[in-house]
């Protein structure tokens, strides 16, 4: 008798069914660096500043979430909570005129690159005082003046833009490095692969950095992509690395080293920074694809708490000083919320503004 045919199943299903009681984790976190901030060349003040920045990103988004739930604004809201060490460690490692571009989980990137909490919150509320004049919303924070080119909403679509920004820097021989961040979901887009090939071929001074937060919307990394993400770079002969993204020092150490190398030899890198997204993909996500235990496991490695503990242990600030910072951030965020609520919406004429750099034309 013929064997029973195997059922045609395509995408790997849910949790892999392991019943040994172990938590089925979406990403395995590599060991963080053992170096102290001093060994990394960071001053005490810089570390405290890092903590303040990360705490700001965290509280900004927690308040944003509340405001969203209160119906203060609509649209999408993709939260970065849990990933703050990546934006913070990177920005501290790069020069101020190095270029950063990312996808739609962009609030943290905006805040760390000079979008004020007020301008950020106002953008979420769709107000004229928003960093993108209320034209972009949550997904399109930007501060181009400070070399943050923005958040983009098409998965993978901004990756060639990052390559192009790096291309222009090389063309102008200005020594700037471009860091292009993408989610693990974007790894499956053709745009990434075309850009990696061209970047290696043309020696573009760019770092393509995957923030692997474990999920492509609701699909775990192991269900949407094969093999290790960072190893894809080998197919392009591109330098690559994988490291822990829950520890800000690890991010800083690696980005510092990689950016220095890119500046020296103008060869691109493809890196995987493993982190974890605490919240859903967006606000409408019931998160049925993961267990509470899994989330709790990662929260033990919380990047903000981790740095706070370091600051206190190393006596970089006293408990009182840390509390003062927390209170200050809390006040700043609440002021931002109040500001966003009260500042006016764009005027009607704004509908037709910002379409053209040159002479505007609208077909009627």
């Amino acid at each position, binding site marked *: 008798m013929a064997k029973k045919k195997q059922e045609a199943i395509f995408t790997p299903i849910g949790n892999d069914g392991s019943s040994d009681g172990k938590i089925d984790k979406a990403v395995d976190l590599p060991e963080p660096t053992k170096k102290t901030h001093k060994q990394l060349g960071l001053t005490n003040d810089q570390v405290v500043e890092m903590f303040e920045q990360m705490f700001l990103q965290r509280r900004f988004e927690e308040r944003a979430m509340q405001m969203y739930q209160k119906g203060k604004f609509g649209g999408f809201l993709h939260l970065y909570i849990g990933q703050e060490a990546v934006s913070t460690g990177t920005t501290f490692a790069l020069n101020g005129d190095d*270029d950063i*571009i990312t996808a739609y989980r962009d609030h943290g990137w905006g805040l760390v690159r000079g979008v004020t909490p007020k301008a950020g919150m106002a953008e979420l509320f769709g107000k004229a005082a*928003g*960093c*993108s*004049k*209320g*034209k*972009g919303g949550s997904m*399109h924070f*930007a*501060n*181009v*003046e400070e070399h943050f*080119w*923005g958040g*983009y*909403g*098409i998965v993978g*679509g*901004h*990756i*060639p*833009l*990052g*390559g*192009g*920004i*790096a*291309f*222009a*820097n090389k*063309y*102008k021989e200005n020594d700037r490095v471009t860091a292009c961040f993408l989610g693990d979901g974007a790894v499956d887009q*053709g*745009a990434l692969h*075309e*850009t990696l*090939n*061209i970047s290696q*071929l*043309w020696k573009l001074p760019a770092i393509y950095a995957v923030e692997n937060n474990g999920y492509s919307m609701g699909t775990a990394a192991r269900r949407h992509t094969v093999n290790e993400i960072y190893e894809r770079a080998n197919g392009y002969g591109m330098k690559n690395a994988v490291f822990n993204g829950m520890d800000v020092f690890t991010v800083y150490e690696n980005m510092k080293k990689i950016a220095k190398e890119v500046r020296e030899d103008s060869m691109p890198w493809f890196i995987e920074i493993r982190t974890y997204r605490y919240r859903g993909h967006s606000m409408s996500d019931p998160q049925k694809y993961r267990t509470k235990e899994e989330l709790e496991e990662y929260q033990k490695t919380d990047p903000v708490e981790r740095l706070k503990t370091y600051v206190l242990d190393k006596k970089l600030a006293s408990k009182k000083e840390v509390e003062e910072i927390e209170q200050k951030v809390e006040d700043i965020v609440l002021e931002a919320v109040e500001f966003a609520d009260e500042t006016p919406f764009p005027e009607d004429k704004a509908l037709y*503004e*910002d*379409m*053209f*750099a*040159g002479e505007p*034309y*609208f*077909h009627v």
Partner: protein
Amino acid sequence: MAVLQFREAIRQAIDEEMQSDEDVFIMGEEVAEYNGAYKVTEGLLDKYGFRRVIDTPISELGFAGIGVGAAMNGLRPIVEFMTFNFAVLALDQIINHASKARYMLGGQVSVPIVFRGPNASAGQLGATHSVAYDSMYAMFPGLKVIYPSEPGDAKGLLKSAIRDDDPVIFMESEQMYGLKGEVSEEEDYTIPIGKAKVKREGSDVTVVATGKMYHVVKQAAEQLAKDGVEMEIIDPRTIKPFDIEAVVKSVKKTNRCVVVDESHPFGGLASEVGFLIQREAFDYLDAPVKRVTLPDVNAPFSKPLFDLWLPDAKNVIDAVNTVTYRK
């Protein structure tokens, strides 16, 4: 006036703009060492070197997006597509990024980029190499679309396109690259984007056509003249912004209009112009506006079927005869 081939006129425009602005560069498949798939870029590599004349892999999405990013970061890229049929692979970059980045970031960036290459059919190349995309791009806010028919227009408009601070789609035709025409020798000759030109004066019927279709219409006009029907040909040259004033002015004189368009009938240039005429010149029309387009069918390979598919002078004459009630 110099007499130049279409490709030479385009090359002159690129050359002059590269000469005067260090930020202008050209990239695309085969543009450098091969000297251009259609020899538009011939000699540019020798003159400007590998930094500014750049061969790309066959990665339309990738290099179009690199062009957009480079434009955002201060350069003025000319991105050549071997044909706009291949640019379909790059649509995410053209439509979602080039045309939208400025608006969604509240005016923080500009995207001064030209995407250029041949549009529409070029003989028996099968269904995927034969599509006219001009009206599709014209649908998207923020994009300008130019599709000239003669070398002189091509040169002046391409120079304007390269200087434009916003994204421009500049369309050519494989079958027109060898076409000769008069090109102004005036120094730094440019033509403003969005202005139509009356290419033939006549009092009996207005015919609107650009790109390759202009030449089909010109043939039809010569034949109709023998029958005493004088056609006025309006070549819009730019699809968007569309110079409806020029068309309306002519229609008010002739009271009849045919629009010839090498795209499919649904939602194309012909339907848009037809709508605009009924809105702006309804009381002047002595007959409904007629259009000549491709059928709602893909391009066939077989020669007799292909000839049947592509609008020709006879189709134009039939349409003119209809609107002038001569049949």
